[in-house]
Each structure stands twice: as C-alpha cells, then as structure tokens.
C-alpha cells in the first residue's frame, strides 16, 4: 500500500517544493513593497520593474564573469554577480528618489501622487530594461541544475514517485531564510533599523527626535533595492528572466503584501506563502493524486484541475479582493485601512 505515500511524494514534487520556492520569492518581493509603504507611505508600483532591473544587472555581470571563465560551480555564477546587481539597483533607486520622489516629499504631496509618480517610474524602468537587454527570455542559470533528481530519488527509495529538488529552489529557500533573518535582525537590533521602525510608527515624533528623515528614506531605498534584486534573481534562476513576466509579478507581490498587512514585514512573508500556495494548489491537476488514493474504478478521467495555469494571476486577484472586503488591514494588522 504505497498509494498514500506516493501521492504525498507527488504533492511534494509538484506543490510543496515549488510552492515553498515561489512563496519565498514572493515574500522577499513583498518585503520590499511593504518597507517602502511603511516608511514612504505609498504603494510602489515600480517594484516589479525594479526587480527586473536588478536581475538584468545580475545577468549582465554573470555573462561578463562567464566570459572571463569565472565560476563557482556547482553554484550558479549569478550568486557571485548578485552584489554587483544590488549595487547597481541601489544606485538606480537613489537616483530615482533624488529626481522624482524627493520633489514630492518636499511638496508634502498626498500618497496618491506618489503612487501615480511610481507608475511613471515603472514605465521608465520598464523601457530602460527592454532597451538594455531586450524584451526576450534570457536564461542565465548555470552550475549544477539539481540537488535531487526524480530518477535518483526513485532509485534510492524504490518508490514509483520521485521528488525533484532543483538547485534554484534550494537556493531560493535558503536565501529567503537568510534574508529574512538578516532583515529582522537589522530592524530590531540596529539603531538604523529602529529609526526606520520609529519613523514608520510616528512620523511627527520622529521629526522632533534625532532621526534624520532623509537618511531613513535612503536606507529604505537601499533595502528595497537589495530585496528586489535578490527576489528577481532567485525568480529568474528558478524560471527564466523576461521583463514582461516581472511586470506581471507585481500583482502577486502586492497581493502578498496586502494580504499580510501593508507595512508589516512579518505579514509580507506570510502573505507571500499564502499567495504562492493558493496559486499552486488551485492550478495543480489532481488526477494522479486522486488515482493513488481512490479505488481503481473511481479514478477520475479528467485532469481534476480547478483552474488552468493561464489564470494563475486571477488567484492572487481573488484573494486580494476577498481580503480587502473582509479584513482590509490584512491578516497581521498593517498600516493601510
């Protein structure tokens, strides 16, 4: 009676592992959105394209390193290029802040003005990325592709279902843990992090204390740039890099941040996994899973898929609408009401 066990392995392979990896990517992306919202108090629509820009920078450096023959195999070269990509993205965001957002801060513009400005920034970044690297699919993953291959897994365990664990998935989950731990250490233990929390908590009082608002804003952009580049690179390694896909990622990322409670870092992480697992479980075809668990003559003939993968973005959209209707502040109480 290996049916239930096999079906569990099947789910691990197609739902659990991909969901964890995708959830980690969304969580890191949503953390960037939520930090910007907490400090600058606007929803940054340019975050998806910031991720695209960061990933593009990483890809370019990766290609350069590859042409020099630099490699850290079995790990992908992109990891080596990541710091350079982050630096380039930090530069981009700080310049954007200086040229765009700082003006509106001085004007004390309403949040909706910032939001619209960020849409403009989004289009510019979008164009910039396509101009430099083109609109096409780019693959830049190298090194060992798998930690565990399905075939090896089957051979080792003797089960009829195997679990594939890609290097990119392992890296994603590991990086997410490190990034989240580092971010929370930063926010809770360092003076700069506490200044950020204080500023987000009570802006008026922060202005009357020894907190330099411009510095808090600068640190926020630096963190947002780092998070966006890491999230984008991990997503690109796991799937592939295409500017349009990154623009589309904006929806699940916003959904994650809002579901968890905008401005709440813990919520962003929870939201990322909620959205990711909803997407994966709803679009998974349960035919084989049911075949393992049901008597043979009950086995379904259709795919038993609740929703075609073409509609996966609808999942985040539905969750987003439901949360906004039922609990607008998100699961963990965020700032937005």
């Amino acid at each position, binding site marked *: 009676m290996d049916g239930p066990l096999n079906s569990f392995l099947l789910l691990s392979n197609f739902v659990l592992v991909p969901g964890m990896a995708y959830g980690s990517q969304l969580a890191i992306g949503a953390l960037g959105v939520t930090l910007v919202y907490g400090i600058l108090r606007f929803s940054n629509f340019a975050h998806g394209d910031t991720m695209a820009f960061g990933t593009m920078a990483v890809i370019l450096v990766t290609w350069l390193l590859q042409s020099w023959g630099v490699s850290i195999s079995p790990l992908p070269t992109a990891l080596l290029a990541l710091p350079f990509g982050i630096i380039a993205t930090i530069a981009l965001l700080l310049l954007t802040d200086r040229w765009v957002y700082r003006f509106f801060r001085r004007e004390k513009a309403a949040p909706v003005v910032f939001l619209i400005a960020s849409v403009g920034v989004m289009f510019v970044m979008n164009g910039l990325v396509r101009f430099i690297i083109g609109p096409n699919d780019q693959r830049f993953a190298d090194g060992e592709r798998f930690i565990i291959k399905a075939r090896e897994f089957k051979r080792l365990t003797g089960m009829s279902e195997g679990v594939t664990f890609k290097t990119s998935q392992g890296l994603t989950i590991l990086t997410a843990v490190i990034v989240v731990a580092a971010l929370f250490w930063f926010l809770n233990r360092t*003076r700069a992090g506490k*200044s950020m929390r204080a500023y987000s*908590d009570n802006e008026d009082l*922060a202005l009357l204390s020894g907190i*330099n608002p411009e510095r808090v804003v600068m640190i926020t952009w630096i963190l947002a740039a780092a998070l966006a580049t890491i999230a984008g690179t991990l997503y690109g390694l796991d799937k592939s890099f295409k500017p349009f896909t990154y623009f589309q990622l904006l929806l699940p990322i916003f959904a994650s941040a809002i579901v968890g409670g905008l401005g709440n870092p813990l919520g962003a992480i929870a939201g990322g996994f909620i959205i990711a697992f909803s997407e994966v479980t709803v679009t998974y075809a349960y035919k084989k899973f049911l075949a393992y668990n049901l008597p043979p003559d009950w086995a379904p003939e259709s795919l038993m898929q609740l929703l075609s993968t073409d509609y996966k973005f609808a999942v985040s959209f539905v969750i987003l609408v439901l949360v906004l209707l039922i609990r607008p502040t998100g699961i963990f109480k965020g700032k937005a009401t």
Partner: protein
Amino acid sequence: MIEVKDLHMHFGGIHAVDGVSLSFEGGRITGLIGPNGAGKTTLFNVIAGLHKPTSGKVYLDGADITGLKPHELFAKGMLRTFQIAQEFSTLTVRENLMMVPPNQSGERLLDTWIRPAQVRREEEQVRAKADEVIEFLEITQVADELAGNLSGGQKKLLELGRTMMVDAKIVFLDEVGAGVNRTLLNTLGDAILRLQKERGYTFCMIEHDMDFISRLCDPVIVMAEGAVLTQGSIEEVKANEQVIEAYLGTGLKNKRGAVS
C-alpha cells in the same frame, strides 16, 4: 531667553494668534493659561516650528528662529511635548529614549560596517544616559515595556524623559497634566521642578490645572482671543478682573456685581 515679537498666525479669516509679544525667561517655569480657543496651542506650534507665522518674529537667545523646522529647533535644544502624548509604540521605553539623541553613527550604514567599535561605544553611552533618565523619572519597572502599553501618565513621563536625553535648554509642555492621575501628576511636578532647579531647564507650559500651575509656575501668562491679557505671579493673575472675565464671561461678572 525666548522672545516673541508681534506674532500673528492667521488661518484664513481666523486670527488664532493676533499680535502676541512676550518673553519666556531662562531658568524659569512659565505657565501659559487661558480659556479654550485663546490661541495657546497655536502659539506653541508657531514657536516650535510646526506652523510658519503669518507675521512677527521669534528669537532664541537673541537669534532669529522664526519659521525654523522642528528638527532644526531640536538641534538648538528646544523641544516640545504634545497634548496627547506621542511615543513610538512598537519600541520599548528604553529604545524610545535611545532614539532621541541626533546624529548617532549607528544610523549611518557605512559606519556600522567600517567602524563597529565606535558605533557600539556610542550606543553604550546612549544606553547609559537612557538608564539614568529612567532612574530619574522612577520608571525603572517599565523600562523594557513597549511604550504603546504605558498608561497615559507614564507616557507623559516618557515625554519628559525625551527632553532629558539631549539636555534640552528649553522645553514646551503642552498640557502635560491632562488626563494624568494625582499621584503621577505629583511625580511629574517633582520631576519638572527638579529639572528646573538642578539642571537649569527652562519650561513653558500650557496647563489648565490651577493647583499644578500654582505649584510650579512663576510667572503666569494669560491669553485670550489670540492676545496676551496679562502676566504676573499666579496670585496677581487670579486677582485680575480681566482674567475672571475672560474665563467666566461678562454675564457672570455682572451677576456677581448684582449679588454683592
């Protein structure tokens, strides 16, 4: 120490502050009283840099500080507290206090990487200072409590503590006694008096509680309808006919006249 010259603050057609000239002397606790809508808080807000005055000047030790931003005034040692106590609710009391001193190197990311020893040393100093303030205000038992969980009175003490973190020269207290129970009010009063006597603080406070004012303030300035009505010691002010009129209205005064 602080001098206000012919200050006007108009909001549209409302003349909230209408030609106020006064001075707050160094090392004293000046009380600012007056009926609701007299323009006390607006005057505070203008002096503390929240509003830019329509016209008029504010001087600190002879230097023009009109229209400076709150954080610029903060750098000059001028602080204010709020009518409704403000705090960073998700930080502890100690962390709240440690937020106050400006230009800490720990806030610069680069320094935390290249000069960790200095950053740590500085943080130790700030922590020691915060502990001293906590001791002074006798709030040791809530030092590690989240500031959002404090009672209203304890939050007011925290506000006072904030001014001590930078050894403020002049502190504006906006109804520091409002909504505070008697016991805590006494602690608060003691702390204010000690700060003035032992550390040479200058206070200017808006207050409604007459007992509290009598205990702390000398002199007292009375405002009504956006202008200064009179000033002097609390006894002089209490005896002033105009003040009674401003508080109770002419009708009552006439009635009283009729009775006597």
